[in-house]
């Protein structure tokens, strides 16, 4: 992205102070959101999400694996983010490694809950096939196709939509005589299990510019930010994750206020997202 002149920077900050952003939005207004499911037939679940000019493709692949020693009754979920050079020239080579790692860790923090498994968006116990021996491993990949700010929110939306599109094959286990033998598993080609994604949270990023904060910042607005707080909120209004970004320090009362605003904004955003998912699924079935 080409650097901004001082006049442009001043215009952006002044506009935000007046509650009119350069594209005409208000401070707490999102860009248009469009959702598409089933874009990658080979994956167990996939989705394409466009938030303004930011575009994300997310896919979910399920493989049979072995549960971890610490949690033999739970499946495993891994989240990876790939910032493609097609999205931004800065993402060439190793330039995107730090951003990808940061985004994937933030998403893991928001979606996978605590280490005991409580508060996770997905019920990991439903991924168990045989306790301690066989479980489903979910690999969630997010690909940034086009980048115009607010990547974290768009990635969270794409993952939620991809999970709602995910079908896990049903597994039949033949009981072997000896309990220490490896169980034989038969993966069905016809029957699929679907996830309950009502507990999957959305991420709302509030970006502080001057003395105000905005949602869904574009790249230009992000370049003017002093700091930002990404809040992950689920349907019940519980905070599932929180990440502060940007270098400047924030007063604690400002952070608490940002959390309240994020909870308020997330209510309508979740409703909007639910209707978009329903429309996308209806469109996919119509094909």
């Amino acid at each position, binding site marked *: 992205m080409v650097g901004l002149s001082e006049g442009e920077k001043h215009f952006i900050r002044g506009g935000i102070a007046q509650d009119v952003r350069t594209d005409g939005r208000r401070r707490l207004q999102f860009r248009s959101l469009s959702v598409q499911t089933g874009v990658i037939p080979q994956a167990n679940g996939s989705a394409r999400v466009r938030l303004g000019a930011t575009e994300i493709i997310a896919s979910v692949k399920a493989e049979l694996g072995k549960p971890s020693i610490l949690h033999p009754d739970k499946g495993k979920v891994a989240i990876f983010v790939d910032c493609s050079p097609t999205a931004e020239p800065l993402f060439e080579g190793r330039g995107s490694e730090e951003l990808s790692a940061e985004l994937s860790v933030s998403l893991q923090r928001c979606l996978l809950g605590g280490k005991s498994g409580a508060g996770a968006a997905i019920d990991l116990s439903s991924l168990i096939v045989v306790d301690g021996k066989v479980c489903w491993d979910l690999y969630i990949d997010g690909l940034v196709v086009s980048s115009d700010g607010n990547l974290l929110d768009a990635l969270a939306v794409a993952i939620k939509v991809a999970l709602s599109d995910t079908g896990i094959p049903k597994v039949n286990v033949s009981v072997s005589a000896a309990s220490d033998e490896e169980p034989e598993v038969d993966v069905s080609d016809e029957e699929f299990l679907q996830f309950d994604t009502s507990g999957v949270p959305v991420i709302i990023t509030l970006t502080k510019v001057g003395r105000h904060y905005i949602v869904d910042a574009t790249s230009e607005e992000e370049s003017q930010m002093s700091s930002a707080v990404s809040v992950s909120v689920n349907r019940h209004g519980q905070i599932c994750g929180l990440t502060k970004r940007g*270098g400047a320090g924030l007063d604690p009362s400002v*952070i608490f206020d940002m959390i309240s605003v994020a909870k308020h904004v997330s209510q309508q955003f979740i409703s909007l997202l639910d209707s978009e998912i329903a429309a996308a699924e209806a469109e996919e079935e119509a094909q």
Partner: protein
Amino acid sequence: MSAQAGPGTYSPAAAAGDRRRERKEELRRHLAEDADWPRADGRSFHDCRPAFMQTGPTTAASGSAYAEFGKTKVIVSVFGPRESKKAMMYSDVGRLNCNVSYTTFATPVRGQGADNKEYSSMLHKALEGAVMLHTFPKTTVDVFALVLESGGSDLPIIISCASLALADAGIMMYDLVTSVSVSCFRKNIIIDPTSDEEAWQDGSLVVAFMPARKEITQLTLTGEWSDGRITNAVELCMDACSKLGDILRDRLKDTATLTCE
């Protein structure tokens, strides 16, 4: 130039202000009623581990610091300000470069610490707000942190130790940065968790705080929290950060005293 002092224990129990004290007493009663077990190392829920910090363990560095909190041992070296590599573009503010790594023997399972690759960027964000970058344009300050032993709450200790090392190097800062984390279990919140406690937590919260300016430079949260619990946990962390800030200042004064003698 080496200062060494005995370990100091700090606890956020002594809070300022009547309302806050009442709230903390109420919280303490609530925690006590729900569970009355002391922690494995004998601490109560809101006690931090003994903190030992020392400046100047590395002579080759501009500044360095060593920190020991219970079983967690961290050493941080600071180099610079020094000339930036030519590949980097011109910048009228200084650059802060942070790197966090684990020794192969730092964890119970050999080589396990390599998974924490996001710690470098989190350390950078925590320190960026405190360092006066405009005082060394066109140059770079490198912060290298090495975890010698991982015993829980690694990142907060790295952040506190790094800010002490930056001060030891003479880098101009608005304030020291101190950091503390809490773990959340069903109903209880415990501060400064060990690795055993971390392994079973329902959620966690890490706060990096500038005590004198009362600003938060880093805040990350995992798991499911309600609003009230976040507020309580953040205030608990800020209390502990202020106590830890006093300890850091004492270490720096000890160093200055030795230099004057």
